[in-house]
């Protein structure tokens, strides 16, 4: 037995082609190794903004998790954050519930009891109760829309009439299905919006659950006369959130929000434009040009592009032979980021990410520039044997990369707030520079 982690070089993968990706690099063919990245990728409630936190991004909402105890266990991590205090509740399923489905009958009463508990405790009454259900109900085929309607009806005529009850599906089983949990939860959230008059000077940025960082995108929109740039995370109240329905158009910054944007287009008549987070300043410029052309606004990005390019040049001057390892537990597509770093003139020794067919376009380009770059799959069982000593990197990017290479300086770059555009490039370069200098000191 070799006792070593399986990897392929970018050159080998490019030669095999998109339709012949080795089994070891694809998800679904193997047992899944427990690395930080797979916990985040494979478990919809484990890391960052999973379904639970996402559902609670609606202002003035609470969540009732109706599931076996195991599904709510790690919520302790989130519940300890001040913003989630008194917002998570649990209705634990038992074995008889599994057989009879009687837990569903208890939901309306449980919702009322929670609302009463909050009221009697002097807390404000939530506007929305999210009901989070998990794999068990996915398999039982529970009609949660009906259950939620029943709960709303149960509240009618009480002190809690008008409180909305909506389903959140934390179905890990459907992670790679047509409507994965993180797609579905976004649809649920924006389904709360109701039609209202349009405001030509309002725009929504949708996709994230924490605000965008201080990116130039907002500045360009403001310079174009947009007065209200709404993100769900910056809506302080439910009323403010509802005003998202008045937007002239939506900017979609995460493909997982595409289905929600489609829904809003059909139901609320809000068209959308999709923007991708990339780390190539040329690509960022093309994207802004396309945005300007579609929306009819002027975008002059000369200053911001120069600033980002300068940050790249500074890092290159300071560390001309910089070698990086890049993981996928980060605010980037690991393959796109690796390709951008190679095009900036750096070297990428190892990438830890699922080489899905949609990433193959990057793999091909990486192979052209750096055929020996090694590609590992975070989920593959032999990652248990990954040896840091094999790596030539001087710094790693991504929380998963730190897990594999704990002794190499790391920029985790997986903060809740989202970097975007030139700001993302500039700040990442600066962070890498700082981490390297700190390691030298």
């Amino acid at each position, binding site marked *: *037995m070799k006792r070593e982690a399986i990897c392929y070089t970018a050159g080998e993968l490019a030669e095999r082609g998109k339709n012949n990706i080795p089994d070891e690099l694809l998800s679904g063919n193997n047992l899944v190794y427990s690395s930080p990245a*797979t*916990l985040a990728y494979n*478990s*919809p409630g*484990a890391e960052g903004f999973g379904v639970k936190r996402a559902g609670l991004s609606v202002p003035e909402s609470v969540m009732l998790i109706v599931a076996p105890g195991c599904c709510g266990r790690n919520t302790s991590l989130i519940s300890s954050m001040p913003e989630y205090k008194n917002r*998570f509740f649990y209705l634990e399923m038992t074995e008889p519930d599994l057989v009879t489905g009687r837990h569903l009958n208890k939901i309306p009463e449980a919702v009322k009891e929670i609302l009463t508990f909050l009221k009697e405790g002097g807390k404000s009454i939530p506007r929305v109760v999210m009901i989070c259900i998990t794999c068990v109900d996915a398999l039982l085929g529970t009609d949660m829309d009906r259950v939620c309607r029943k709960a709303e009806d149960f509240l009618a005529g009480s002190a809690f009439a008008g409180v909305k009850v909506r389903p959140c599906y934390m179905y890990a089983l459907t992670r790679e299905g047509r409507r994965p949990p993180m797609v579905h939860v976004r649809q649920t959230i924006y389904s709360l919006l109701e039609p209202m008059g349009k405001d030509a000077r309002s725009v929504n940025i949708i996709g994230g659950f924490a605000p965008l960082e201080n990116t130039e995108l907002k500045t360009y929109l403001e310079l174009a006369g947009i007065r209200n740039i709404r993100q769900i995370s910056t809506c302080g109240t439910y009323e403010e959130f509802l005003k998202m329905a008045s937007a002239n158009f939506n900017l979609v910054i995460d493909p997982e929000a595409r289905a929600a944007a489609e829904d809003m287009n059909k139901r609320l008549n809000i068209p959308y434009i999709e923007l991708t987070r990339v780390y190539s300043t040329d690509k960022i410029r093309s994207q802004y040009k396309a945005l300007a052309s579609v929306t009819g606004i002027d975008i002059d990005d000369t200053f911001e592009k120069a600033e980002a390019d300068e940050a790249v040049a500074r890092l290159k001057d300071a560390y001309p032979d910089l070698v990086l390892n890049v993981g996928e537990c980060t605010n980037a597509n690991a393959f796109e980021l690796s390709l951008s770093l190679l095009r900036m003139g750096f070297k990428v020794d190892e990438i830890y990410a699922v080489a899905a067919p949609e990433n193959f376009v990057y793999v091909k380009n990486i192979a052209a520039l750096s055929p020996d770059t090694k590609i590992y799959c975070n989920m593959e*069982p032999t990652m248990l044997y990954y040896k840091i000593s094999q790596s030539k990197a001087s710094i790693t990017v991504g929380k998963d990369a730190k897990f594999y290479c704990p002794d190499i300086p790391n920029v985790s770059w997986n903060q809740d707030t989202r970097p975007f555009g030139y700001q993302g490039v500039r700040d990442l370069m600066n962070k890498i520079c700082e981490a390297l200098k700190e390691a030298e000191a």
Partner: protein
Amino acid sequence: MKGLRKVLTPFAPDQSGASGVLYSMGALIVIIDAGGCTGNVCGFDEPRWHESRSAVFSAGLRDMDAILGRDELLASKIKSACDRIDTSFVAVIGTPVPATIGTDYKALKKLIESKIDIPVLPVITNGMKLYNEGEKQAYKALIDEFASDTPAYRDRIVIGMTPLTYGRYHEDLTLDDIRNIRGAGELIAASSSGIDACEYLGKDFKIVSPLYKDNIPEGIKGRTLVCHDEVVGKTIRDAGVDCDIATFFKLHDIAKQDGDKKITEEDEFIDLVRNGGYDTIAADICLRELVPDFEGRWVDLKCFAISGRL
């Protein structure tokens, strides 16, 4: 309402307990889930995961795998992993998914063993019971598969001193300990699951927590309610403290005295504290939120299975 939690988060489930027992034994551990349960185990309930790598894997089930009951695919995945990873046995741990689709664990064991040359231990957990049940199931499966009649082994083996009960003060068992457990000079049950395992072995044993033996937590004074694992409570009582035991986990008759209570709901704990006339509560500090009006003394008796604090 029964089963409704308004303050506390759920406690460690049975699958975490099973995984915790097996973690140190060199097994290839496969949690039969889609990923979320493994995320809970490794990302939360297994403090050793942050310090040392262990072969804990998710079966990576997808909806059609569960709907169609693709046990053959699961067995193939396990075989493929065994071909590439050194391991002495495979443990398959149940979750709500196999519980829902009615997985036949005996058949699954046979199917996997037909493909590989090492033993397969199914641990029948379902995510709806508490961690002590999972620990018990894991000990039983290990004993059934590996324990043999050894004439003499170590002087003493402590069973049930897992991280979920004892946090960083856990004491791991090895596979050799299990193989030779019948030959141990003395068996100590250090927790509820330890009592179950010792009873299952059918040998004499002592019930005592090595951590709290002759080591009464500082601050305990007067009439006390200890809310933790039953063995922790019993050990504190045996050290001379005037206390009742309340536990969210199992309470065996062998450890129970008048005044002790197995509790399940938040309200039961609140009632006990409000009406028990206790001077001191010795319990994980996270439980204090249930009884903010309690004016007595509170001794923080950490319990990882309750709060996840080490």
